[in-house]
């Protein structure tokens, strides 16, 4: 994470004085974006940089669902299964996606390209069902649209 410190410094400048502790989440998000997950050495480096206890960083890492200690596939497909999405066919869409990729929810394909995760409400209920591909929302999903999406991602490599 040390190469990110100049970025962290720029981030810190936007906060009021004494807000070092607040930087735990944004720094972890940035580290994960950079490495794909948060490694042991990142935790140690962040504690030293921010002057916060290791317990605090571990607490944040283990609590928030978007933070990871291990990598995921190149394309992380997060499918919402909450009420509005399920009422619009999410269960079938997720089952189709898993069959198509040959994984169980939470699993990664053998080539390391796709990870499928089931998630709770993404705040996209009016365009349900929704699947997040890395950062981007794909809305009003159907089995056909998912097939096209997977084909497109496979072609990209």
């Amino acid at each position, binding site marked *: 994470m040390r190469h990110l410190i100049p970025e962290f410094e720029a981030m810190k400048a*936007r*906060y*009021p004085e*004494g*807000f070092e*502790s*607040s*930087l*735990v*989440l*944004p720094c*972890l*998000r940035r580290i994960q974006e950079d490495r794909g997950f948060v490694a042991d050495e990142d935790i140690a480096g962040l504690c030293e940089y921010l002057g*916060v206890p290791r317990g*605090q960083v571990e*607490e*944040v890492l283990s*609590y*928030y*669902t*978007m*933070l990871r200690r291990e990598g995921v596939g190149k394309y992380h497909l997060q499918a919402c*299964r*909450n*009420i*509005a999405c*399920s*009422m*619009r*066919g999410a*269960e*079938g869409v997720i089952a189709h996606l898993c069959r198509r990729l040959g994984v169980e929810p939470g699993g990664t394909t053998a080539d390391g390209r796709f990870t499928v995760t089931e*998630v*709770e*409400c*993404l*705040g*996209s*209920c*009016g*365009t*349900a069902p929704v699947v*997040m591909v890395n*950062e*981007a*929302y794909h809305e009003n999903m159907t089995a056909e649209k998912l097939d096209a999406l997977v084909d497109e991602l496979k072609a990209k490599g």
Partner: protein
Amino acid sequence: MPGRQLIMTFEVTPTSHTLAEYKARGGYETLAKALAMDPAAITKEVTASGLLGHGGAAFPVGRKWGVMKPNLGEIHYLCANADEGEPGTFKDRWILENAPHLLVESMMITSYALGVRHAFVYIRGEFDLPFRRIQGAIDEAYAAGLLGKPQAGGFTLDIVVYRGAGSYVCGEASGLITSIEGRKPYPRNRPPRLTVRGLFQKPTVINNVESLANITGIIRMGAEEFRKVGTAKSPGTQLVSISGHIAKPGVYEVEYGYPWAKFLDEDCGGMLNGAKMKCVVPGGISTKVLTRAEIEPLNLSHESVNPAGSGLGSGGMIVIAEGTCMVRLLQVLLRFYHHESCGQCTPCREGMGWMHKIIDRIVAGEGVPEDIERLYAISHANDGTTICGMGDAAGFATVGILNKFRDEFEFFIREKRSKCDGRLECLA
């Protein structure tokens, strides 16, 4: 459109969210007006407007602000709650994506009124486009010298966008500030109120995005004009996000007092696939479901919906068709609550787990007749025994469904199958 509009007043185009177009619509003119006013007069105007919070609890915004004592020299903070996570709710996203400068201008006026030097937008971690839009608007405001530099009279404001990382409880105001402090979002006991001791122990106002978005309009037109929209007890409008088995899901700005059935049948195009309506979740899953018959005489205002035993909550309306299995629907809800319980309070941490196990067992055909009473008992045990409202909310949702659709639960336990084929989708 269902009544008059205060927020969705312009045509959305690929560039309508930019500073240039916001200014062309009269943007930041109200800020200039506000900066010429006495800060206390702004709070007075907001109080007089009767604006009710749009996050779910409908707490009067002016009363929250009234607790702040901006002149005592202490540091104050403002947080816009953009952690929109109540299932069925996606209206703040509309503001963040399409009217981000309305939020920025409103936050500037609010900060001036409350003596705030640093403000935050706490946005849920999954929101990508909404984040880019609000961050983009803030960057534009910095570049234009609106933020980070003294304005007329010396008022200066910095706004930081703080991104969450996946957690429902962060939408609870005290959980939100604990998250900004860089920790897991354990809610805090009140008193002290957050307006007395909030972020890093300093007085902090946390308002929902939609509540804040109304501030610019209130100061521009004045409280008296604002109150001409809506009803006497529910002034203004509410952004309703509607989803589920409805023909035209989406975000609608509804003037308070608008007939509910007309809204569903005409504005939202009626039911999906011509289905019959079974019931509606009025304002996010934590509000009790109402049947079509119960909705018929009601209008969309707090004074009409609250006596019916529910509430408009966050405006997240979910329409459910006849033929939908309410047992499986409750299973989805309880799985969610169990997943999101932060684990701080025993009744919620354990209770959510037990309820989730019980409903899973019923759906697996292994339920026993006592399970229904157990779900009631756990719901009641959560009521008022936890620090934040999540435990109560799960109980409300559960009791609401059990009271009205008990026969489906009894059928499922007795016959070991769903009375409605276990379906959540609406048949074509």
